[in-house]
């Protein structure tokens, strides 16, 4: 009998390694996470250039803002009933609707909030808090028109274990990542990396080129090596997010927007609710206005790469690289999950 082409290792052989097995068992406990995302407010306290929310094609900012806690409570209870175990609260700026975030936390206790960090989110809302960072304070002033942004963000979330800074690499701020990482390391805070991913129809200077991708890869690699406890990332994260091919081409995005199947996984359960509590399957993904061909977004990778376990179970090194990715994802998104040491320090080609 001729069998199909097989990987060199059986899965049982790969997880027989005690280090791999331990990490596998650690991440496997979180396979129950099923996410959806919610826009909590259509207002923001700043106005950044090229903001997806206000400039995006989906025109989410024109949705009515439902501010009734009872309506949100009913929604989250229905979401819980539907099997949602992890929420991502986004914007425009969710910190402007803390009472609604609290309603959510009371119903679904695992989640993350994406904020610009200028208005502190009350301590009792114990979600992971992602603070968006677009460069040093000179760049932030120019692009986000907000002075002393990093200084204020760091002050607001000083000694706050909920906080992780999300640095978005664009072609114009690659070298500033070092300065920001050093400041955060000094302040005992954590950082993870995101990639600017062009909105649909955008062809401006912020779109990455092969050269800026390579340059970003170099800087990320240096920072991860120099600040291993400050930087929540792995060599495989770096490769997967700085490939010339976008995440969809590499891993086949499973968000409903790109995936017609409603049978299982994200295609079945993921929804992206607007402030009027409506959602649209056609626009449902974590970054609805992004051009899928240019998508390297950290939130997209967290779902798309982690879902592709099967294809990474070919040999111990590749599977370890995937485990590092999942370990990073959990450390970035789940409160109380501690990142382990990366298992695979050498480059593994992303399995597209």
């Amino acid at each position, binding site marked *: 009998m001729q069998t*199909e082409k097989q990987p060199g290792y059986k899965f049982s052989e790969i997880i027989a390694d005690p280090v791999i097995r331990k990490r596998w068992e650690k991440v496997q406990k979180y396979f*129950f996470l099923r996410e959806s995302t919610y826009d909590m407010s259509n207002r923001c306290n700043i106005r950044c250039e090229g903001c997806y929310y206000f400039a995006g094609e989906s025109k989410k900012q024109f949705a009515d803002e439902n501010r009734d806690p009872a309506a949100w409570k009913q929604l989250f209870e229905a979401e819980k009933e539907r099997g949602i175990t992890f929420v991502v609260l986004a914007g425009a700026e969710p910190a402007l609707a803390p009472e609604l975030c609290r309603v959510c936390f009371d119903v679904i206790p695992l989640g993350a909030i994406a904020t610009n960090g200028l208005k502190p989110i009350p301590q009792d809302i114990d979600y992971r808090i992602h603070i968006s960072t677009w460069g040093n304070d000179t760049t932030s002033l120019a692009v986000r028109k907000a002075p002393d942004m990093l200084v204020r963000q760091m002050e607001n979330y000083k000694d706050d274990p909920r906080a992780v800074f999300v640095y978005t690499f664009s072609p114009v701020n690659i070298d500033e990542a070092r300065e920001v990482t050093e400041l955060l390391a000094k302040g005992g805070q954590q950082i993870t990396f995101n990639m600017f991913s062009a909105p649909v129809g955008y062809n401006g200077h912020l779109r990455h080129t092969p050269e800026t991708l390579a340059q970003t890869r170099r800087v990320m690699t240096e920072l991860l090596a120099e600040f291993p406890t400050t930087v929540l990332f792995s060599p495989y994260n770096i490769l997967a997010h700085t490939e010339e091919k976008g995440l969809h081409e590499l891993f086949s995005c499973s968000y409903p927007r790109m995936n017609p199947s409603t049978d299982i996984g*994200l295609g079945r359960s993921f929804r992206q609710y607007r402030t009027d509590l409506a959602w649209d399957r056609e626009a449902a993904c974590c970054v609805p206005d992004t051009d899928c061909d240019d998508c390297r977004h950290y939130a997209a990778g967290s779902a798309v790469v982690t879902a592709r*376990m099967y294809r990474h179970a070919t040999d111990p090194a590749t599977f370890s690289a995937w485990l590092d990715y999942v370990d990073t994802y959990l450390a970035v998104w789940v409160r109380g999950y501690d990142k382990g040491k990366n298992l695979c320090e050498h480059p593994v080609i992303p399995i597209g």
Partner: protein
Amino acid sequence: MNARVTTDRDSPWFSGHFPEDPILPGIGLLNMVADCIAAAKEETIVMAGLGRVKFRKIVRPGEQLDILATSDNKRDQYTFRITSGGQDVCSGIMRFTPQENPQVNNSEVMSNEISQTITRIAAIIIDELKLEDVTPETFDADLDLVDEVGIDSMDLATIALVLRDEYGIRIDEDDYPKLTTVRIIAEYIDNKLKSSE
């Protein structure tokens, strides 16, 4: 069909399970239901499958059990329920086939192979998902794994890897949405094995 049965204190089921702490094993309960249905039908039938079986209460020697079995719309399928003093003991669905000439033919060999694969897949799912109250033999092969068992894509990927080890076949990630029941997975594996022969 209604029946009242008193469990026999001397039954070998009790001595085997467990000498120090005798209880009637699940398979003993199911046998009891099958015997009652066969007796009521007055024809020779054999149990062909089980579904949604739930064991809720331990049965001790000498306990009086009430068995209620109702014929479903589907031919030879019964929904049953066992109670003891008003308390639920066990419930589920039982399917039968008429007993045929025992001469073995090819399609029987084939369905035997499939049913072995079904039992093995059920065992893997039970093991991976740490399911309780169900055994590989009682797992309903037609249960919707997503809707009724609550499996999601990462669970399915894990199961697919264990199946890859066991059968030496590759399960395409794009095929996951189609693999909705244990029977469909078994047929999928069977087809893959045949096409690689």
